[in-house]
């Protein structure tokens, strides 16, 4: 399956990318893809917390991702 990954804040700098497409095995969960991304990018892997959203919403990490989904990765928030 082909999914789109978007990066925000410091993660954009760690990856030097706003977004990218990944070809992954069918049936992977959010948690598995998060581990995959942490393995690719050492600086993301070293973060204490890596947040992930699926298609613009927070979902449980055991949610299965499907072809065409958009995942967003980002650090803990600091607005306000």
């Amino acid at each position: 399956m082909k999914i789109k990954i978007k990066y925000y804040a410091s993660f954009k700098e760690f990856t030097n990318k706003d977004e990218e497409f990944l070809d992954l095995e069918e049936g992977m969960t959010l948690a598995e893809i998060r581990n995959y991304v942490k393995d690719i990018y050492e600086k993301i892997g070293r973060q204490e917390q890596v947040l992930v959203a699926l298609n613009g919403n927070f979902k449980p990490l055991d949610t299965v991702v499907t072809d065409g989904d958009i995942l967003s990765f980002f650090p803990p928030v600091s607005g306000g």
Partner: protein
Amino acid sequence: MIKIQQEDFDINKLINRIRSCDSGCIVSFIGTVREHSRGKEVTRMSLEVYEELALSELKKITEEASEKYSLNGVDIVHRFGDLLVGDNIVYIGVSAGHREQGFGGCRYIIDELKKRVPIWKKEYTEDGEEWVEGEKIE
């Protein structure tokens, strides 16, 4: 009303917007850019937002606060982009029957916003630029 915008906001207009005859109070919170942070002098700040998720989380927080504190009205405006020291960052205004509800509701909204809404600050100091570390969430 929930808005995420680059431009500044007019506090007086916002306060008048939330005024209502069935409310005995209006409580507002305005977050601004501080000159000192973590022992360093801040020259400016930039804010990045993940707008789609930020809007949906702000809507959820507004609903939670309205129910928990019986609020009559809630307005939230959060800015993004480049800001200078002293600039407005965020406005939260609530109207309620009584002050306990107003203070409680406004406090709940800013506390939850700082934990859950995907907006990030980057501070610029004489030593360079640095992302402000957010609180780890459960």
